[in-house]
């Protein structure tokens, strides 16, 4: 399927919309009618053709516009991209993984020629043609993580592994669900997860960390996480909370279907070979309730899930002001029929 890139916005007039084909491939995160935190990690093996799991990194119709939004965020706040000095090897590891994967999986869009350390990268959708020397920072216009990070959908962080811990020592984060890279840089796995309710006590993070520390080269894993966002806004950072916080009070029974978006993160975890670091990719998908209910199974399930949430999660995800309005609107689409297991459409 040849991709046609949309020209759309994630701020101000919010022209972002999914095409019908994109709706079908949305990674709906709820595998049953209720939700709670768990160590939901599975091997990141290639999924069905056309699905968001088909390739190592998913590129879709929003690619070009998302990259434009990222450039705007970085222009306003360079602190959204940071790397501590000891992460340079990991940065190159990330650049290699991203370029090799994209060129292999999307040969019509990206090409990579390698002759020893002499690399030639062509990104057709963004009109980039770059020759550089692998390992030489000065041969690129940005440091390697920022260079590829500006050319791939999703946020990324790099974790150094030492003393039986993972340390978030680098990242390029411009479309996050309300956490600050600038604040979290240098923290370990338990520390950056500190604000998450219930999961520490349930042992989720202890088990997840133990698993990640033993991750092997070439054996990536993935998991899904979700929240809700008002308007298709990518930059819901704490930095800009005074700009988007008000949106939460604008939801009415009339506009809820259009305004409230389910925001799903397809998270990938990769052991990087030379640095022994772990790459964490956070690929976000946004879909309005209106579009979600076009898939009957999702329309039935989502209100049930929203009703099942523990209060701590409602508070943490910032749903309190509009959750009931969303449930009331969604329930029209729930005929009470049983739903099939798994997240995919029937």
């Amino acid at each position, binding site marked *: 399927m040849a991709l046609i890139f949309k020209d759309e916005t994630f701020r101000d007039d919010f022209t972002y919309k999914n095409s019908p084909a994109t709706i079908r491939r949305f990674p709906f995160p709820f595998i049953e009618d209720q939700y709670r935190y768990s160590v939901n990690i599975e091997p990141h093996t290639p999924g069905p053709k056309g699905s968001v799991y088909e390739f190592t990194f998913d590129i879709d119709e929003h690619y070009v516009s998302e990259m434009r939004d990222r450039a705007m965020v970085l222009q306003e706040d360079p602190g959204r991209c940071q790397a501590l000095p000891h992460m340079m090897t990991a940065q190159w590891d990330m650049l290699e993984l991203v370029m090799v994967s994209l060129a292999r999986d999307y040969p019509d869009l990206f090409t990579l020629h390698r002759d020893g350390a002499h690399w030639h990268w062509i990104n057709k959708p963004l009109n980039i043609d770059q020759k550089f020397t692998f390992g030489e920072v000065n041969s690129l216009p940005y440091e390697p993580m920022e260079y590829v990070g500006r050319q791939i959908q999703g946020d990324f962080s790099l974790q150094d592994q030492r*003393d039986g811990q993972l340390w978030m020592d680098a990242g390029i984060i411009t479309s996050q669900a309300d956490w600050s890279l600038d604040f979290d840089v240098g923290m370990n796995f338990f520390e950056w997860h500190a604000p998450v309710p219930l999961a520490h006590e349930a042992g989720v993070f202890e088990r997840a960390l133990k698993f990640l*520390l033993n991750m*092997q*080269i070439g*054996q990536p894993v993935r998991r899904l996480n979700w929240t809700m966002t008002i308007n298709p806004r990518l930059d819901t950072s704490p930095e800009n909370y005074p700009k988007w916080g008000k949106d939460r009070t604008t939801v009415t029974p009339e506009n809820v279907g259009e305004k409230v978006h389910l925001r799903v993160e397809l998270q990938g975890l990769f052991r990087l070979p*030379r*640095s022994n670091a772990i790459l964490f990719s956070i690929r976000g998908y946004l879909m309005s309730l209106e579009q979600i209910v076009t898939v009957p199974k999702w329309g039935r399930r989502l209100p049930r899930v929203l009703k099942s949430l523990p209060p701590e999660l409602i508070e943490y995800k910032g749903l309190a002001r509009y959750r009931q309005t969303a449930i009331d609107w969604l329930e029209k689409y729930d005929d009470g029929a049983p739903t099939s297991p798994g997240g995919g459409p029937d």
Partner: protein
Amino acid sequence: MSGFPLRRVRVAEVEQVAARIKRFRFVDIDNAPLSQFSGGSHISVVMHSGDRLMRNPYSLMGSPTDTSSYQISVLHCGADSRGGSKFMHENVAVGSELEISQPLNLFPPVRLAKKHVLVAGGIGITPFMSMMNELDALRSDFELHYGVRSLEDGAYCKYLQSRYGSRVNVYRQDQGQMIPLDAILGEQRLGTHMYVCGPKPMIDWALQTAELQGWPQENLHSEQFSAPPPGKPFVVKLAKSGREIAVKGHQSILEALEEHGVDASFLCRGGACGQCETGVIACDGYIDHNDHFLSEAERVGGKKIMICMSRIQTGSITLDL
């Protein structure tokens, strides 16, 4: 996740590098590129010796960025050996085919360190070979202190000295030379980390010396080339399947489970990674915890065992499997 995906390699080169040490070079069976790796990594080598299956970890020694081949060095453990190192020395030659795991690193240099002091004894030099390669490429400050019985017994002394110059210091036991660790540690800049690999007594000595010099624990790192120590036979009961499996004197619990087709989780098989941690439901004997993973409190608690290394002296043990 139990175990690891394996890849087939062919032995491209074997060289006797010291009295009891051979160096092996592996290439992919189809000459496909191997993964790059990080300094301090090891691979597991699977060996079929008669009807016995062994998987021994060996440190990677070459350049971490060389994807054309991997190199390991194996010390012949002699009569003591249950067979792995003996098999490598006597049955593996150029052209032999073996299976290996992906590289795994349980002994990485700390990238925040201002300087790295590497202390090696005998075959314990191997993880430092790739580590120095990496540190040198990163222009990180390091020095190696390498104790050998004699120049005949110590591998790579000349090579290392010619490549890294005065950063390499070799101490020959046959000449009465000892690693002057007190003096070495006494004059290091703040932010230096020490790494030690060698026989257990040497590791203990180095760590203790550093502690007595006032070095914080956080700056000390070690890797021990442990193999599962033998003992008396005993019985393992599996709570979930209700099976009973006999562990022979020269077997680890993990090996006995594998021999009987029970799928158990593992990675390093050296008691370091934590992957094989298994719940203990009942035990009428005393557990010999031979791993480097469980905390003292966990050992005393008696609710966990690392089945790649630990065993019981007598009686039977019931595991949550």
